[in-house]
């Protein structure tokens, strides 16, 4: 079982974090000229966790709006597997990468089609480029691209067309490299239906398992929720059911990405790897997150006992004042100073690394990733029945704690308290 870090333009993991076993590179966050010009040896030397790496083609982002998501569209188009969506090739003799990006962003609205390639030839070409790129990058497995599933009544034929062509191309261009089938589903198809009777999940499981690929790469789009934590029990239940079904049917490797902390929960039902980062765009898949923004992040404090984070302007101090410290504390090297201050009845603002201010996020990032690595390591050392017990105990505690914290009232929405009960209900409904 592994925790994989999300790798975009910034590929470094916070200093001091151990227990991250690899990375998934997301093209929407790093243009091809930047990624591909880095030598593999240099890449690994600079970022050791990239010794084990995957590249997610992110074909499920084909419908991004180029007028609002210029940076992501330019990055994606630069790889060459989005069909007619294209950008001018970068030539280092003619311009700098920064100039190339600026020029490409200015034109992308006229060259990005907002459609996945279609037609046998276009799909074949797209997949061929995609597989060749992953092979050249030295990825340990190939993630076969798939469009996003947004229609609950689909017959899944478009996705299966991509998958079958992907299997053919991979067998020819990259024999011997394990292949992971992308299962990218929008929560629009999941929220309204009990996961145990969702025929789309049955269909996906049947068709993917019947193709005998070496693994599956599961991504859920969070189109209908705004938080960092997906809260709907049917969505989380669907993630768990997919994972459980794939593993139960003998699929060798299941990787879960963009599920946030719920990815850790998926490992309790058999997921082999899960991927996260601290930033919102690394934790959830939501097309609107790709809109060009200039906002900066603020720090938050992750409490594993709560399975959530605290907004730091007022919320954590209020919770401590009301006697919740013992239940919410979470010790890591990065949080040691904060914990010490809170135990001494000092306020968050007195700890510079955690003071609520824009971009003061280094400690928050390190703490979050350390906590996620810590829990992953704990689960790796556990047997299947221990993992089930871990999840149940964790969620029961988190749901109770969230309910108790509600009594404080007036908490910032970033202190998310809605998902814990939904996760517990999804867990308890598992067959």
């Amino acid at each position, binding site marked *: 079982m592994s925790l994989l870090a999300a790798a975009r333009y910034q590929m470094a993991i916070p200093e001091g974090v151990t227990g991250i076993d690899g990375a998934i590179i997301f093209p929407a966050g790093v243009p091809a000229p930047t990624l591909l010009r880095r030598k593999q040896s240099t890449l690994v030397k600079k970022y050791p966790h990239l010794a084990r790496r995957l590249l997610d083609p992110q074909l499920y982002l084909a419908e991004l709006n180029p007028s609002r998501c210029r940076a992501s569209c330019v990055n994606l188009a630069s790889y060459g597997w989005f069909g007619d969506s294209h950008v001018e090739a970068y030539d280092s003799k003619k311009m700098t990468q920064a100039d190339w990006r600026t020029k490409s962003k200015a034109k992308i609205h006229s060259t990005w089609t907002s459609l996945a390639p279609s037609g046998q030839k276009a799909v074949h070409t797209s997949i061929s480029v995609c597989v060749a790129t992953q092979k050249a990058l030295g990825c340990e497995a190939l993630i076969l691209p798939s469009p996003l599933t947004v229609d609950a009544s689909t017959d*899944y034929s478009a996705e299966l067309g991509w998958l079958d062509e992907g299997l053919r191309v991979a067998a020819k261009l990259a024999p011997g490299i394990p292949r992971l089938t992308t299962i990218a589903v929008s929560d629009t198809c999941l929220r309204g239906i009990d996961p145990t009777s969702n025929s789309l999940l049955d*269909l996906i499981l049947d068709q993917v398992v*019947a193709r005998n690929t070496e693994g599956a790469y599961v991504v859920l789009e969070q189109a209908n929720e705004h938080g960092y934590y997906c809260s709907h029990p049917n969505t989380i239940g669907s993630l768990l059911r997919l994972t459980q079904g*794939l593993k139960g049917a003998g699929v060798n490797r299941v990787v879960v990405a963009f599920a946030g902390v719920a990815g850790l929960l998926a490992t309790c039902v058999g997921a082999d790897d899960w991927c996260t980062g601290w930033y919102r765009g690394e934790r959830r898949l939501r097309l609107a997150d790709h809109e060009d923004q200039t906002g900066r992040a603020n720090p938050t404090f992750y409490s594993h006992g709560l399975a959530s984070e605290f907004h730091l302007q007022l919320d954590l101090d209020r919770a401590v004042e009301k006697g919740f410290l013992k239940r919410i504390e979470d010790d890591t090297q990065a949080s040691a100073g904060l914990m010490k201050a809170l135990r001494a009845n000092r306020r968050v603002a007195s700890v510079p690394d955690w003071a609520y201010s824009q971009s003061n996020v280094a400690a928050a990032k390190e703490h979050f990733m350390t906590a996620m690595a810590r829990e992953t390591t704990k689960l790796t050392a556990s047997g299947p029945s221990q993992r089930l017990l871990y999840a149940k105990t964790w969620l029961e505690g988190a749901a109770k704690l969230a309910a108790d914290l509600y009594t404080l009232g007036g908490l910032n929405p970033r202190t998310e308290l809605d998902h814990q009960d939904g996760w517990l209900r999804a867990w308890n409904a598992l067959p």
Partner: protein
Amino acid sequence: MFRATAALPKKGDVDVALKVYHSDEYEERSAREVRALKAVNGPTIARIEDAGSVVIRGNKCPYVMTSFVQGEVLASRLSGGSVTPGVTAGIGRDIALAIGLMWEARTVHRDIKPSNIMLGADGRAVLIDLGIARHLSLDSITTTGVAWGTPGYLSPEQARAVRQLSCASDVFSLGIVLQECLVGQHPTGRRQQLLIKGGPRTATVRADVPGPLADVIDSMVRVKPHFRPSPGVLVQLFTSLL
């Protein structure tokens, strides 16, 4: 709707089965059958020999010609009673092999039943009559809400008229056929509604079936298709039981 008959083809001296469709409705299905079958070739599956169309009474009628398998239809054999567990395992191996070959071409037979299995003179079972085999990429042809196949042998998902079936559906049907082989009669009296939650346990239809064989067949008739063994795994399992 069509007739199959033995005939001598123009080229060579191989007996063939000829299926002529008498309705435009079947033309598309016939064309799909041809495409599907052309991609499939193996010792336990009927081989396509020719295809085209003929004019009968002024109507253009497509036809498909497949190799004619000499031997006895399994349904006929079972009318005389059950077969031994060893013969059952052999049929399981051969037809699982055929299902696997069809699935490599992303084709599902959709009508596996005793009357579509021939027991050849060489002792091997051969899957015939792929007349309703459907090439899965041609999804638009399937009519929503209509289940093709024969009641009593349909997988739960096929009975629900799920538009995309996988080889797991054929695996289920084969499991029912194998139970019928062991008992000499259909395990639920061809009542499809009794298969909604999966097939019956093999031990309940015949108590003295060797445990390992019963376990394999039980796994084939599970309600969830992704929990059924793949054709490749089945070939290995049945081979180990022979």
